[in-house]
């Protein structure tokens, strides 16, 4: 597809479970970002990849959160031992130029 694709669009899980969220960026975009957006808030930066490596992971809230991008394209955000406070919309974006991000529609995570 032409845009950034995120799956699943909705995920409901129970506290303590493991979750994976997938992002398929625009073809050829070298930079990939994960953000988290809670209700009434702006997107909160989590991690940024340039190619296969995490160039900046300073936004990951704790060691339960991890992201990979093994072949420099698709990325997976992994959350272990989910907590109710992890409930949010997780946004993925990709870009070629600094600041010019193309966002997906997000994955809404609900932890019961």
């Amino acid at each position, binding site marked *: 597809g032409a*845009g*950034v694709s995120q799956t699943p669009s909705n995920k409901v899980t129970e506290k303590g479970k493991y979750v994976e969220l997938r992002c398929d960026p625009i073809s050829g975009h070298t*930079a990939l*970002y994960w*953000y988290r957006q809670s209700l*009434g*808030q*702006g*997107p*909160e*930066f989590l991690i*940024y990849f*340039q190619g296969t490596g995490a*160039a*900046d992971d300073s*936004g990951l809230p704790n060691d339960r959160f991890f992201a990979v991008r093994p072949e420099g394209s698709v990325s997976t955000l992994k959350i272990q031992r989910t907590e109710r406070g992890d409930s949010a919309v997780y*946004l993925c*974006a990709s*870009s070629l130029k*600094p*600041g*010019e*991000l*193309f*966002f*997906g*529609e*997000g994955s809404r995570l609900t932890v019961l």
Partner: protein
Amino acid sequence: AQSVTQPDIHITVSEGASLELRCNYSYGATPYLFWYVQSPGQGLQLLLKYFSGDTLVQGIKGFEAEFKRSQSSFNLRKPSVHWSDAAEYFCALADSGYALNFGKGTSLLVTP
């Protein structure tokens, strides 16, 4: 530390009226500044950006923004608002890197 403040949580404007959304930033040097729009059910979309040069920048959908260093502001304007402009608007800042720091957003309601 860099930060972005959007003082208005909600703004209501009549269709056809002019619009100004406020954005103030805190950063030691000249930042890269952006405005993004988030419509219901859609991903965030870049409206315009400021890197350097002319302080009045034009964007898509008839929007413009003016960078004022003396006021640490980057306000978004539109001369005549259309009903389809109703959305959430986010101001964002980046330093020399790629990751964006977003404000909390301003929700725009357009009345007939």
